[in-house]
């Protein structure tokens, strides 16, 4: 390599973790390999974060204020980071990379919940979606830190700190939109109504979670329902809004009955990678 170029291909331009924090690359090079079932569980966690990161990334340059371009971008980056860890870890069971799993699985192979696939809508809908997901994932990671699986516990430990900020961001906006103007109040209520049917699915005990939960590896989603719903109810009512009277949508089981939106998300996300199979970027 030509030294006068000033750069080398080994420069760590893409190492975004600060200090000694582990990176997905570290995880991969550590040689850790997980089993099939833990991998399937990690996919559920990774796919949720990936879909939501993809959705939030679209806000950058479109947010209501410059500070929100930054904030939503930060949240998207955190979630993408979580997704990269979980997918990388899952991939160790099958000899696949995070990119194999993100770019070369078809629609029906993803395990994400329909909530995170919902379109951004207006800012209020995005905040409603984020509020629910960040309350859910905060509760989830605060238990996953005690997982018998050391890698899952370490990722949860990192994610928990970040998700605490996401919760705060959504809760602050919930208050502002609910208590701002008549219009913002109505939009915030409408935002909650628009996504509420998809809350249930987050608490479904999809396979192979029950067995892993028994082994102390996974967190059983159904046990998150009470604390998450009680916190959500409290925050929403304190903001002066009401819990939507919307029934859970049928098919809340992270199965093949995914949202219509998933195909569009993947079409956009995967298009370039699939045009050049086998290429490195």
């Amino acid at each position, binding site marked *: 390599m030509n030294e006068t170029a*000033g750069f080398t291909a080994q420069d760590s331009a893409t190492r975004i973790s600060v200090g000694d924090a582990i990176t997905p690359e570290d995880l991969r090079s550590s040689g850790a390999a997980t089993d099939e079932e833990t991998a399937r569980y990690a996919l559920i966690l990774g796919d949720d974060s990936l879909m939501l990161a993809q959705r939030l*990334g679209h806000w*950058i340059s479109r947010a*209501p204020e*410059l500070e929100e371009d*930054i904030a939503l*971008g*930060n949240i998207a980056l955190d979630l993408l980071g979580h997704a990269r860890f979980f997918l990388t870890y899952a991939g160790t069971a099958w000899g696949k990379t995070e990119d194999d799993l993100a770019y070369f699985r078809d629609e029906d192979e993803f395990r994400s919940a329909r909530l995170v696939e919902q379109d951004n809508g207006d800012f209020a809908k995005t905040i409603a979606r984020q509020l629910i997901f960040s309350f859910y994932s905060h509760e989830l990671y605060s238990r996953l830190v005690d997982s018998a699986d050391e890698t899952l516990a370490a990722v949860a430990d990192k994610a928990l700190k970040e998700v605490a900020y996401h919760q705060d961001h959504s809760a602050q906006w919930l208050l502002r*939109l609910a208590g701002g103007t008549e219009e913002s109040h109505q939009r915030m209520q409408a935002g909650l109504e628009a996504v509420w049917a998809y809350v249930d699915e987050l608490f479904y005990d999809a396979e192979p979670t029950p067995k892993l939960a028994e082994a102390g590896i996974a967190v059983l989603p159904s046990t998150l329902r009470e604390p998450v719903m009680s916190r959500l109810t409290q925050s929403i009512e304190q903001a002066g809004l009401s819990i939507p009277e919307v029934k859970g949508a049928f098919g809340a089981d992270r199965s093949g009955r995914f949202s219509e939106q998933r195909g569009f998300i993947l079409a956009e996300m995967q298009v370039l990678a699939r045009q050049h199979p086998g290429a490195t970027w």
Partner: protein
Amino acid sequence: MSTQSPTLHPVEETAATEQISEDARAAADEARVGWERFEQLIAEDKRVEPRDWMPDNYRKTLVRQVSQHAHSEIIGMQPEGNWITRAPSLKRKAVLMAKVQDEAGHGLYLYSAAETLGTPRDELYEQLYTGKAKYSSIFNYPARTWADIGAIGWLVDGAAITNQVPLCRASYGPYGRSMVRICKEESFHQRQGWEILYSLSHGTEEQKQMAQNAVDRFYGPALQMFGPPDDESPNSRQSMAWNIKRFSNDELRQRFVDMIVPQAEALGLRLPDPELKWNEERGHYDYGDLDWDEFFSVVKGNGPLNHQRLAHYRAARDNGAWVREAAAAYAAKQQQTEYDAALLAA
């Protein structure tokens, strides 16, 4: 004075007139002292700070330059932002997101620096919204392929750094200091752009072609980012006299060309300029004429995407108006509640 001459005017009026002339004299004195101090700061190559006296034109020039730079960061989020959802690997997606987010951050520092000169952010937003303000023309070109993200990072951010490193020493303190941090992040951006191109130019035949096409399209516009040739750049001389600008457009352009030629060789990509060659005598690379008709046409609003970029910005502002109103209304209510509580407690 009034005791010696017979009063033709009522006493009060005289006193008032004297007061006005006193004030005028004091202001003139202050301006003279301020001017001398300003001249001295510039002569000694020291920093001018927000509370220092400064000539109106110095202030105006800075507001124009700093806000144009801020606007460029904001509009510049669009061409790259449009690849966030399609980035070909998760690592690239993360890096690109971080980069576009940095640009929003740069916009923030720069708007803040402009605010220290007395122009509020909302006023600057309005200038961009109405199309009155200018931003870097390069962002009116489309980012068609993934390789464009590499070319923008390497060439566009590279040109920006070449321009901005000397601005870290700009005479206006808040501007110079904001440039220090911006330059650090920009050099990271240039590196990631170069790395994208390196991966492509060492990848498949299609990837290599994609990289070459991107370089072909961005080379000329990137060189034009330094502005018109020195003999056609009316504002440069004054900016240099005020220690805002340190090098002329052509000097900076030459510095940039000298930097990228070996980098292009390392990439294995060709720069699309048949006249590009090393000049032993000058110790620099010679390069061919640039298409200045195209440049001025894009500056005047006829670039490929001028309308789209502005429409995107306007849509974001319009769609977010109710959110900003809500935040302001909420803050006002909170303030009122605190005020009432304080009254009750008193």
